[in-house]
């Protein structure tokens, strides 16, 4: 009894540290297991935000990028049903989204039928196509998790991607299949001519699918997916076949991936081999992990961050993939909980009402660190330019400043910025750590 007594006296919130920072499957306890209500506030906020977004960013290109983001979010959430919720690592998930998208393109081109179909219903067909494929593949791939599952997914992914150039009738070869969304039956008079119309269609599906996926995680089979992920054997001795539980998750994930594919078809009106290939499958893995697999909203953050990197940063520098790679490796090494894990580390701090304590130390350390890192990135750009730019083409622009890369001054300046920034950060890091410990310790505990 003594241990139990002792444990009862422990203050709440003093969970072991690695629980907060490093456990990617921390989801369970966040989900507020016992409460009878599903929190509504975040969903309302998200919906309102989605509605307002186009009024803030009126550019067509901003809307296009937001559309891309929303599609990636759905896809990443679907992927996380496998990786985060079900513990299944897939290297070929793009094929479910892709096949869903291709199927939608064919529906779009089936003019008699499409003319009578309101466009907002189209993604459903994508979902069903993705689900059908998952039904077939899952029947043998979900027998075990782990390496076998991962390798089967890789093999199937490669096979279907290779089929895309061979089976031209369905995949349209290398030029893909294209169609025209405006041939659908007008939906309350909207013909979806403009990006903004498409934006609201995608936003609607984003909220709907995210909600459904969230609710799925609250159902018996969704809960058991977590259980099977953590301990398949125990789950079997509770009456659940681990294989069937995985199969259900897999099929559901295929469905939502297919929805993402359908939305892709609507947004871009073209699907090609790239929607199926292993590179796309790899990207969605990166996106999900970057965001954090342990939290339902992790993939959302990941999708937003990655889309920005890919479409916006790549406008600024051709080294964008290099930075993405560095960011990714750094995330895996230092924050395996992903960006979401990083955010959620602060929940106990807020709960303790000690967030104030962190503001100054954060400013003191992270600001110089960020400046230092930007200086470092500037140096990288400089080296790259020095090495690869054409002779005579000495002018370059970094951070909106144009200078001569063959001059010594910018090198000195950037080295100084990087050195000083990182130096200050290193110096102030211990005090940040101290503040952090202080902020995460409840008042009763220390005194």
């Amino acid at each position, binding site marked *: 009894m003594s241990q*139990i007594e002792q444990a009862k006296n422990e203050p709440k919130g003093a969970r072991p540290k690695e629980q907060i920072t490093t456990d990617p499957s921390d989801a369970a306890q966040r989900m507020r297991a016992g409460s009878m209500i599903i929190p509504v506030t975040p969903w309302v906020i998200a919906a309102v935000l989605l509605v307002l977004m186009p009024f803030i960013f009126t550019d067509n290109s901003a809307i296009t990028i937001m559309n891309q983001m929303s599609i990636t979010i759905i896809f990443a959430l679907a992927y996380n049903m496998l990786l985060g919720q079900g513990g299944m690592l897939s290297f070929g998930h793009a094929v479910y989204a892709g096949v869903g998208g291709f199927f939608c393109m064919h529906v779009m081109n089936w003019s008699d039928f499409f003319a009578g179909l309101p466009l907002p219903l189209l993604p459903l067909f994508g979902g069903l196509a993705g689900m059908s494929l998952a039904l077939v593949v899952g029947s043998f791939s979900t027998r075990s998790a782990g390496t076998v599952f991962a390798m089967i997914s890789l093999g199937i992914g490669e096979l279907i991607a290779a089929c895309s150039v061979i089976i031209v009738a369905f995949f349209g070869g290398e030029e893909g299949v294209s169609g025209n969304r405006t041939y659908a039956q007008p939906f309350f008079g909207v013909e979806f001519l403009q990006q903004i119309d498409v934006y609201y269609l995608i936003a609607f599906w984003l909220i709907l699918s995210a909600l459904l996926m969230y609710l799925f995680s609250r159902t*018996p089979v969704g*809960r058991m997916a977590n259980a099977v992920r953590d301990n398949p054997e125990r789950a079997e001795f509770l009456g659940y076949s681990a294989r069937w*539980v995985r199969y259900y998750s897999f099929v559901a994930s295929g469905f939502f991936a297919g929805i993402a594919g359908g939305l892709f078809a609507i947004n871009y009106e073209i699907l090609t081999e790239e929607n199926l290939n292993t590179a796309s499958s790899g990207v969605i893995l990166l996106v999900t992990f970057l965001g954090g697999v342990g939290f339902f909203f992790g993939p959302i953050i990941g999708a937003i961050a990655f889309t920005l990197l890919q479409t916006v940063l790549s406008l600024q520098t051709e080294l964008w993939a290099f930075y993405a790679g560095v960011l990714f490796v750094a995330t895996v090494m230092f924050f395996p909980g992903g960006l979401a894990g990083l955010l959620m580390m602060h929940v106990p701090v807020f709960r303790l009402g000690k967030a104030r304590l962190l503001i100054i130390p954060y400013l003191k350390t992270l600001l110089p660190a960020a400046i230092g890192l930007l200086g470092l990135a500037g140096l990288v750009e400089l080296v790259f330019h020095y090495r690869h730019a054409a002779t005579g083409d000495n002018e370059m622009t970094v951070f909106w400043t144009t200078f001569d890369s063959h001059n010594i001054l910018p090198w000195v300046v950037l080295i100084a910025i990087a050195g000083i920034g990182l130096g200050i950060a290193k110096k102030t890091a211990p005090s940040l750590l101290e503040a952090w410990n202080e902020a995460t310790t409840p008042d009763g505990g220390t005194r």
Partner: protein
Amino acid sequence: MTPALELKGLRKSFGKAEIIRGIDLSIGKAERHAVIGPNGAGKSTLFNLITARFPPTEGTVKLHGQDLTGMQPFQINRLGLSRSFQITNIFPKMTVFENVRCALLWSQGYKYSFWHMVNRKRDLTEGAEAILEQINLTERRNLPAGVLSYAEQRALEIGITIAGGADVVMLDEPTAGMSNSETDYITDLILKVTEGKTLIMVEHDMGVVFGLADRISVLVYGEIIATGKPEDVRADPRVQEAYLGAALEAEH
């Protein structure tokens, strides 16, 4: 009356080594049965054979008269046989409450449902809370199971095992590695939660065995050398020789 669990000619070999060498055993309904024996006698293997963690080399296992040959663990569980493990086997990343609730899902008939919300189901919440009450973990309900103390984890394991309402409960060394006070606590707990159920347990602690069991089987080198009431087994000279004597001496 059909016995709750019946083993006939059960054998298991790993390569050349025969670990279980022909076991016949019949355990009646609502009986508390303990399997004891020295280390390496094959007690855990026997458990694993019964629950289809390993397939037997030969022989049959019958649960309420139904042959379990070829069944998967989850199918056996659905027939009303539930087990715990020697090494704590829970869902460490889930909360205590969720651990218990997961154990309730199948027996409450939710199966692979994806249209029910678990936290909106009063039967699940109340059922899980009742179990938590029984195993004295109500206070810890929202902690991840992995951070519980060892004794608490063992208690949770028992809770998960009995939650599904199985009428045959198998416990593999429920008190292993516990202090005396913890052992007493777990023993009381087992008595309380297996009321009216068939209990089969492997146990080293003779105090627990004699305090709990209606009947005892002694397993030595893959064979049952004696089965009977505690006092009969205690008196059996072969048991004395093989095992009990030494063990009983150590008790004092």
